[in-house]
């Protein structure tokens, strides 16, 4: 059973799904996407004893736009998440995020420290992601952004891992076409500029950094360096997996449960 609600968070009428009771886990989606990326995780994770909280970030999915339009600073999303955690009364939640969600999760680890039970940051490094910012700024002009659907589809397939079946990869890529290009592109500007490296040494919650070995968006050395810079952080590289572990791995909830259990502190 999933409970859904529209709630005003930081000036945005925001769509948030919740399921289960127990230790809260805030699940954050990737650039341009929505909480639907966690559709195969929510019920199974709730059954493992968690209160699963899946928001659509401002401008994504069923949430209204951010008050200032598309967001290019992932720190704004992190602040929005902190407001959401307060509004829902989540006590020492886990945060798990992927891609920009992973970077937002790292940002929250820096901001909130021991007010979090722990963070699983997937497909993310703490420094600016590798992407051409000038090209992205051009893409914000629609006249400069041809074949968007094809590029999202084929670009997604290119970063899904080799262990994923063609059928599953095709479904992931098809679902990812449901995006607002202005929002996705702004998110990617955030991906290419967000940098919380300076705060990693003072992180006061357990952190687990996870990346797929087939993820072309990432420099695995930078991912390992991120983990190495956080006191006590773990690092896992997933063989044959790409940029979207929660969509690519079968039975991701069980895998995530293992990682969350490994983070220790509950409440």
């Amino acid at each position: 059973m999933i409970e859904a609600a529209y709630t005003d968070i930081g000036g945005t009428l925001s769509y948030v799904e919740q399921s289960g009771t127990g230790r809260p886990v805030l699940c954050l989606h990737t650039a341009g996407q929505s909480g639907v990326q966690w559709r195969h995780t929510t019920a199974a994770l709730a059954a493992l004893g968690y209160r699963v909280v899946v928001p659509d970030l401002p401008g994504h999915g069923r949430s209204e736009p951010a008050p200032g339009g598309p967001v290019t600073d992932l720190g704004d999303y992190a602040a929005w998440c902190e407001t959401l955690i307060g509004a829902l009364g989540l006590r020492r939640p886990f945060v798990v995020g992927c891609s920009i969600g992973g970077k937002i999760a790292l940002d929250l680890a820096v901001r909130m420290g021991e007010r979090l039970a722990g963070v699983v940051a997937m497909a993310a490094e703490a420094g600016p992601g590798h992407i051409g910012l000038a090209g992205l700024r051009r893409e914000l002009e629609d006249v400069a952004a041809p074949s968007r659907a094809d590029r999202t589809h084929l670009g997604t397939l290119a970063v899904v891992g080799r262990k994923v079946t063609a059928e599953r990869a095709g479904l992931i890529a098809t679902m990812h076409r449901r995006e607002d290009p202005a929002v996705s592109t702004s998110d990617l500007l955030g991906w290419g500029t967000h940098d919380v490296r300076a705060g990693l040494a003072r992180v006061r919650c357990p952190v687990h950094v996870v990346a797929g070995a087939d993820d072309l968006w990432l420099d695995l050395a930078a991912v390992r360096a991120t983990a190495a810079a956080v006191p006590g952080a773990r690092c896992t590289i997933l063989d044959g997996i790409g940029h979207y572990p929660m969509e690519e791995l079968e039975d991701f909830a069980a895998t995530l449960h293992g990682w969350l259990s490994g983070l220790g502190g509950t409440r």
Partner: protein
Amino acid sequence: MTTHRYFEDFEVGQRCSGEPRQLSADDPSDLGHFGPDALTALFEQSGGLLLDASWHYRAPIRAGSTLHFEQTVTRCRRTRGGENGVVTRHGVLVDEHGRTVREGSATVLVPARGEGPDPVGRAFCTPAWAEALAARLAGDDRFAAATETWDGTIGLRCGEDEVHLRVYCGAVIQAARRTPHGATFTLGASEPAWTELLTGPDGDFVRHAMTGLFDVRGSGYEYLRLTKVLALLVEHARELAAEGGAA
């Protein structure tokens, strides 16, 4: 690859790996085994008269490392006279971590057994290859649908070979070394990059493009617009290469 003596024995995409060799941990002179002359000799073991060779430094070689040499044939062309062939091989020297420490290529002259004709399926970005590719695209409704409203020229460049596919409203109407108005955009890469894309295990064009091995000149907008078309073109080019190249 060491037993190939005639031009016809070589094919683009042929690969071979040498035995791993561990460098001495305490004798720095052992590194000399991987100087330019020694590396050229690695290629020469595969036969032929060496015409050209190049070597590039990619990463330091450390004493005690275990190195192995991997070669791939990246270009085969019969000489104008017909009695010889010119074969280019690309080689990488890889350490125990899978890191390329040296990279280079060598071109050798080898005698031909017969007079040809030679297969075109792996003669990337030559007019004969482009014609064979165009013939395949003519039978693909997906290509026709994607380019139905397009009027332009796709340029493809492999090393120094460049070819143009003149596309008009759903069909390739000319495949030639040069078309009257030139290419709308040209997609180019080295011979090893094309060889890997079209004969290697991973045929995903976008994945290869994302790794930065391909460059685009001309209209970047039209290049992006034809993303799906280029993926289709690569799909057909891989099938053409797998056919053994029959025209």
